[in-house]
């Protein structure tokens, strides 16, 4: 009943978005129920707003190419790696209150303790967080956010979303982002400039760290948009499970040789012609 309600709500939201916000572009139409395989692929991609998302993606790529990427490149080339690590550490340390809150909301007392310990050590002996001293002692970082908390609470991911400038997300994680912003005590410091600088620094830090990887992924993709969508989904599932390989990673069944329709020579054996 609750599930039906949730599905109904999700459908209503998608329908509204399709009709209003993305009107001129439209939405992907679900394949008919008579075609279960197409339907499964459609549901796995979880992207009913795909036409709209692809438009945003192209806009993001353009913004990246002309602004973010060059800035990240200069930053990466001009600033030595140890300094960039310090920036990265400092920004991560600022996230500690949000991580702590979400660890608590997920009932993860262990990680809450770890977060408090890391924050205390790194903010003092680690010179306001620029040195990850706790990490040096083996108390390594692990990010948490409200999107993950919602997932732990059993909220589904909702449709995939490509957010302008912010990149890949989904309905649940977009709500999570907003919640993280409003639950962060640093939001209420009253220094507007600090907020903007922090946001800018964070984007450049992330972009510079993934510079080569993103280049490689784009170069070797036949569909860059779909690759990013797949990577985002898998990465979030891993983050939600805290990378726990104690829980089985979601490995799909890879058909074995014995299910193969072909023998060694690539000859057709027992397959009805389907196309």
């Amino acid at each position, binding site marked *: 009943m609750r599930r039906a309600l949730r599905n109904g709500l999700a459908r209503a939201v998608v329908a509204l978005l399709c009709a209003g916000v993305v009107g001129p572009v439209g939405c992907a139409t679900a394949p008919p129920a008579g075609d279960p395989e197409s339907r499964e692929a459609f549901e796995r991609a979880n992207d009913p707003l795909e036409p709209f998302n692809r438009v945003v993606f192209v806009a993001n790529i353009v913004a990246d190419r002309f602004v973010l990427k060059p800035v990240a490149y200069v930053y990466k080339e001009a600033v030595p790696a140890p300094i960039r690590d310090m920036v990265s550490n400092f920004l991560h340390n600022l996230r500690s209150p949000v991580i702590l809150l979400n660890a608590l909301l997920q009932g993860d007392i262990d990680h809450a303790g770890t977060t408090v310990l890391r924050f205390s050590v790194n903010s003092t002996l680690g010179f306001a967080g620029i040195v990850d001293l706790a*990490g040096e002692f083996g108390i390594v*970082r692990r990010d948490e956010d409200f999107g993950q908390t919602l997932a732990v609470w059993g909220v589904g991911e909702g449709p995939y979303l490509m957010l302008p400038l912010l990149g890949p997300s989904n309905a649940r994680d977009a709500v999570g982002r907003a919640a993280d912003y409003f639950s962060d005590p640093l939001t209420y410091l009253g220094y507007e400039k600090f907020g903007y600088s922090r946001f800018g620094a964070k984007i450049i830090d992330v972009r510079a760290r993934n510079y080569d990887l993103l280049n490689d992924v784009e170069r070797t993709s*036949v569909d860059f948009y779909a690759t990013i969508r797949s990577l985002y989904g*898998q*990465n979030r599932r891993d983050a939600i499970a805290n990378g726990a*390989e104690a829980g089985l*990673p979601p490995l799909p069944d890879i058909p074995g040789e014995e299910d193969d329709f*072909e023998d060694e020579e690539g000859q057709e054996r027992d397959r009805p012609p389907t*196309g």
Partner: protein
Amino acid sequence: MRKVRSAIVRRPASVVRRSRTGLLVFAAWLVLAAPAAATEAETFIRETADRVFAAYAVPVTDEDRAGVFRDVLSTTFELKTIARFTLGRYWRVASAAQRKEYRRLFEDFLVLAYANRFRDLAGVKLRVTGARMINKRDWLVQSEIGADGTRPPIRIGWRVRQAGAGLRIVDVIVDGISMSVTQRDQFAAAIHAAGGKVEGLLAMLREKTGTPE
């Protein structure tokens, strides 16, 4: 009459006894064989990784690396299975000729995509942390690299199965991201965009790998 009945009654008992013995033998085999197979799978991954990293440690050109990578790919990966998986449901609608071409293009594409992605790993040591059976066919060998810094190490899972002559890799999972799943997802999108035609993907792969039709 009585004899007959007792014979009927007795038979199931003996079947039970026999199957219990079988069960015991099976359990013993599980206990004894499982760790051996786990060690075998772990050793296989350790040796494969050592081979790759050693080859990458010497300063080589991108082309040399591609050669090494292709060699490793063909000798330690179960490419036929991976190729079939990554084509997903379109495997069944592909013609024999398309499948054959796809397999060849897919291998070239993997070399192109991954041979040089790991160039920074030269001299890195892979630490195998364990292995466990994930289904009746497959082992997941867990490992990590780069645990020296303050960042969490990169986790690499190797999905391994017994195939013909020996163990073969069917998937590599880096920090929870499966290479096979990623390729399957983008290939499915590419074929979908080409109106459900496998030829659309083949054309893109030809272009990427610089293969003439």
